[in-house]
């Protein structure tokens, strides 16, 4: 159906001639970079010589670089209307806010003594509750295990020993 208003200038109805066409060579280069970073993240993730505190930051940094590459070139943000970049940035900011505040609270709990973190006794108690709930589903578990591991009968769990999860 056509538009009745005065502005449907034919010059604007002929499609996307203004669109940026990403050259194939560029796409291939980006892909190569992505493969490289994947290998890098596996390598650094398995490396023992990197201090354990740095593993997460390194992995996240590499992931971020990969995402920026995908967003800019594969998703075409580099040559797109800037409002789409704003949308993605705003989203990222809110994810960081969500994650940041929540994690901050978790690490700070009990700071003024109004709340104590979990105690060993509580853990034991929790494991007990755990096993009670577990026992209720032990029959289901056993049935599932039987159906999926019929061959491995020697190692199959018996429903009679539900407490195996309860001993930390």
């Amino acid at each position, binding site marked *: 159906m056509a538009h009745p208003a005065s502005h449907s200038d034919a010059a604007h109805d002929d499609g996307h001639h203004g669109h940026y066409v990403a050259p194939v060579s560029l796409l291939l280069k980006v892909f190569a970079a992505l493969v490289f970073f994947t290998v890098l993240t596996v390598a650094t993730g398995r490396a023992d010589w990197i201090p354990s505190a740095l593993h997460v930051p390194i992995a996240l940094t590499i992931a971020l670089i990969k995402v920026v590459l995908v967003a800019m070139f594969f998703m075409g943000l580099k040559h797109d209307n800037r409002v789409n970049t704003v949308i993605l940035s705003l989203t990222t900011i809110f994810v960081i806010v969500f994650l940041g505040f929540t994690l901050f*609270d978790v690490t*700070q*709990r009990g*700071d*003024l003594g109004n*709340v104590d973190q979990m105690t060993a006794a509580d853990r034991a108690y929790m494991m007990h509750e755990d096993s009670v709930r577990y026992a209720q589903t032990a029959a289901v578990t056993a049935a599932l295990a039987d159906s999926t591991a019929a061959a491995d009968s020697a190692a199959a769990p018996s429903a009679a020993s539900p407490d195996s999860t309860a001993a930390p």
Partner: protein
Amino acid sequence: MAQTLTADPHAPTAHGHAAHPTDGSYNYLNYDKTFMSWAKTVDHKRIGLMYMVTLALVFLVAGLFAIALRTELIATNWTNYAAGEQDAAGTIMNANTYNWVFTMHGAMMTFLFLVPSVPAILGNFVLPLHLGAKDVAFPRLNLASYYFYIAGAVLVIASLFVGQLDTGWTFYMPYSARTNGSVTFLTMAIFIAGFSSIFTGLNFIVTIHKMRAPGLTWNRLPLFVWAMYAVSLVQVLATPVLGITMLLLFTERIFGVGIFDPALGGDPILFQHMFWFYSHPAVYIMILPAFGIISELMGTFSRQRLYGYRAVALSSVAIALLGFLVWGHHMFVSGQSAISSIIFSLITYLIGIPSGIKVFNWVTTMYKGSIWLQTPMIYALMFIFLFTIGGLTGVMVGVLAVDVALHDTYYVVAHFHYVMMGGTVIALIGGMYYWFPKMFGKMYSERWAKIFSLFVFVGFNTTFFTQFLLGAKGMPRRYWDYIPMYEHLHQISTIGSYILAVGLFGVLGTWIWGLMKGRKAPQNPWGAATLEWTHATSPPDPHNFTATPVVTRGPYDYYLADEVFLTRNAPSSGDGAAGDGSDGDVPQGDGSGDGAAATVVARPIVRDFKPH
């Protein structure tokens, strides 16, 4: 301002170039009257009306639940408190029923009524008209959004048959993992209804960005549009988190994944973080559209430029974005770390400021205006009255130490209702009165509308102001019964709720009367200056405008709005003959009748206007 009245050659029923009358007699309501033409419509105006009917039903049901709650609380069930004798049957219901009823009241009101309310009804109807657009950017998505909402509502009804849902609308873990299976249904209902919210928000943002009429720059947008923009941002950014929270709650119940349930190593406070990350911004989803309506009403009925337009427009967006940083103020006594509480409290105050700015600007808009006390304006003033109380008590519950005492008491209940009911619902009613002539082409009765507004006002304050006193004295919320010392205040509150109910049914009555017997509405009964009044008939054409309007001034620039004034004295085509006689000064003439466009004179743009 130009107004070309060439017939629309592309009306939906006539793909040929047959001319239709352009006086409003051929309109979006009657161009096709079949049921399927409604069920399959992609017209934003029809979808708005469909939401209106559906939401009115939801409000009715959830409101009746509220009346039931208040009736139960009219007397204490302690026949002898000192001896511990209690009547387990209750005044009209037992504890389990009460818990079920307050949960349904809360969940339906928030998720199925308040969250969609203004955007779904008035946003859908008005937004494209305000923009001078033919429709929203994605009309089919808009319809899909309606059906997602319906699917959510159906699941809510299904939950009634599974068990009595009794978690409260907050679904706090681990209780929600332990109680009956209806939780599973309601989480799914909210998950699905969430799509409705997301799609509406997404649609509006794109519409506002891409569908504005020529000349409608960002600083000429009506403030209702700005409010819708801010709301839509929140809907898009916050609702998915509710989605994943509900999904995790669902898996917690089905599989026992142990993310929230402390008995399985989970963290119930994490649930509260995730829940409030959505649900705090959600209160801005509920209140921001109300701000937009009030801005429209104050501008129109003061016939004055909205004071501090930019401040009001930008404060909407500021509130929307800052609203994401304060969710922890719901958790001061939850076991959250004290330092988090302190930070959240501080940010809470920063967000209070923009809301205050709005109130001051609305009041100042009336200064040196021409204030016309029609029903919509009465509701706008009522809104300012009630919202000011709601806002100031919000400052109270934001104080760390005071909130420890007031948290989860009736004080919070009263604050919440002053903002949500006194704010959103009152603004919605005001907006409905305002746009009623545009929606249906009929006038309601001013006299009766004003009488019932008095009932609403008195009833509301009687119901909820007493709850401030109750809460400050320590009455906890979600109590089926209370100790005898609270009885008198509870009785006053209950009586107030009956008055409020009478008022609300009366409001509904004025609408139904207007629909049946109201006299024909002129194109611009309020002399308003936004596009839906100046450029669209009442009711509008199926395609909104017979020609795309071109905008040359701001939405409230009455001193430039010749079309509002020049058509005023045009001979009336007899529209007003069947009035109820109570409102003689409704302008009779309008530009919709018969080529009256000839009276409209194009006026040059005035830049940098400096009043004398």
